[in-house]
């Protein structure tokens, strides 16, 4: 007579449940490049909405005094970040629910006051990181200003992964190197990044200059280069209509990438896949 299987099975299932138990963690991405006009806001908006559509609870935080995140969703600029940092209002009070699973901490010119407040504070580099801790979101995306000030440093310290959108022109590699230098300096002070990615934007595969720069950044940064986002006029129209690319032109090449035989190469849909790989480990 063999031993009864039930107790063994129960122990096995019990152990499995322990193994699969996971603490819910928030993954914070910073979209940073000290160069302006490289597609930071468009990338943050598109990828945040893409994640929200995949049922990930997502928060977008506007660290840029231009306040373009709110405009991108057809909203007015508002001092969300100022209320969070300077008026000590809780995160849940300052967020605006803008799409299903997607919230926004908006910004406006009052964000300049946030910088001054942070400059005067103790432990100033980690203020944003502390305010976003235990937020309950699956993913937080920080849209950074094209500058190198205390708020920028706060964003880089709060982030676990830095996405560096960049155009492929002669100065592109230099701009990327600048951000990586700043990240290395922050790393020397004890902050640990899980990684970084370079996101080529405004990509035009027909020009020789694009090829030269693309070869250069792939040679230097290897697998840290994510699939590029093709240049597309509809991206500019999208912001004007206060819609995201998934709403306005989900079939555009900036979303779907280039058609190469049967496969698609580049585009925000593929980039979203890379982000999910990072989030889900």
């Amino acid at each position, binding site marked *: 007579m063999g031993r009864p299987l039930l107790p063994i099975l129960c122990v096995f299932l019990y152990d499995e449940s322990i193994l699969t138990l996971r603490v819910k963690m928030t993954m914070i991405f910073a979209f940073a490049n000290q160069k302006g006009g490289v597609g930071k806001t468009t990338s943050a908006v598109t990828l945040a909405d893409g994640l929200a559509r995949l049922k990930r609870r997502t928060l977008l935080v506007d660290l840029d005094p231009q306040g373009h995140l709110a405009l991108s969703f057809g909203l007015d600029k508002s001092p969300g970040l100022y209320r969070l940092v300077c008026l000590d209002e809780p995160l849940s009070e300052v967020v605006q629910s803008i799409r299903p699973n997607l919230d926004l901490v908006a910004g406006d010119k009052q964000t300049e006051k946030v910088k001054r407040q942070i400059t005067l504070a103790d432990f100033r580099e980690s203020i944003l990181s502390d305010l976003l801790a235990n937020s309950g979101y699956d993913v937080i995306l920080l849209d950074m200003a094209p500058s190198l000030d205390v708020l920028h440093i706060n964003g880089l310290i709060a982030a676990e992964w830095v996405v560096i959108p960049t155009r492929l022109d002669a100065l592109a590699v230099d701009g990327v190197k600048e951000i990586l230098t700043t990240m290395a300096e922050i790393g020397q002070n004890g902050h640990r990044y899980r990684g970084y990615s370079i996101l080529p934007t405004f990509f035009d595969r027909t020009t020789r200059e694009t090829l030269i720069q693309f070869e250069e950044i792939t040679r230097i940064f290897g697998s840290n280069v994510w699939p590029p986002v093709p240049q597309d006029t509809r991206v500019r129209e999208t912001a004007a209509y206060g819609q995201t690319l998934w709403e306005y032109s989900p079939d555009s090449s900036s979303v779907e990438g280039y058609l190469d035989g049967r496969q698609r*190469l580049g585009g925000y849909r593929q980039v979203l896949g890379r982000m999910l790989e990072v989030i889900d480990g």
Partner: protein
Amino acid sequence: MVEAKKVRRTTLDPAVADLLKGMQQKQTESQLPRREREKLSRERAKIQSRRDQRATYDLPRSIREGLRVLAEDLRLPASQLATLALARFLNEYQNGSIDLGQYKQPSRSPRYDWNLVFPEEIVFAGRRKKGS
């Protein structure tokens, strides 16, 4: 002894690698004489038009070899011979003149219920007999 030059290999995202390869190929082609560029363009169009007709199957080496040898003997494209063979099989199967039951064995794969296990005389039928 001269050491071979070491080339540093960079791992790339697969989509980035494919895109880069395509762009480099186009760049190289753009420097060719016009006639060669047109020839390459025609070849590409031909390959693209045939793309939907392509399929990949795992076949025993003996079958592939048999087909290749026969195609060479008859001076025919091997794809056309494979098409004829498959079309005849499908017709005969639909007529009921082929019974797969004798080859079927239960599969342990979650994807399939059955495997076909062939006797050697079928698998090696593609081999050309000496002197024939």
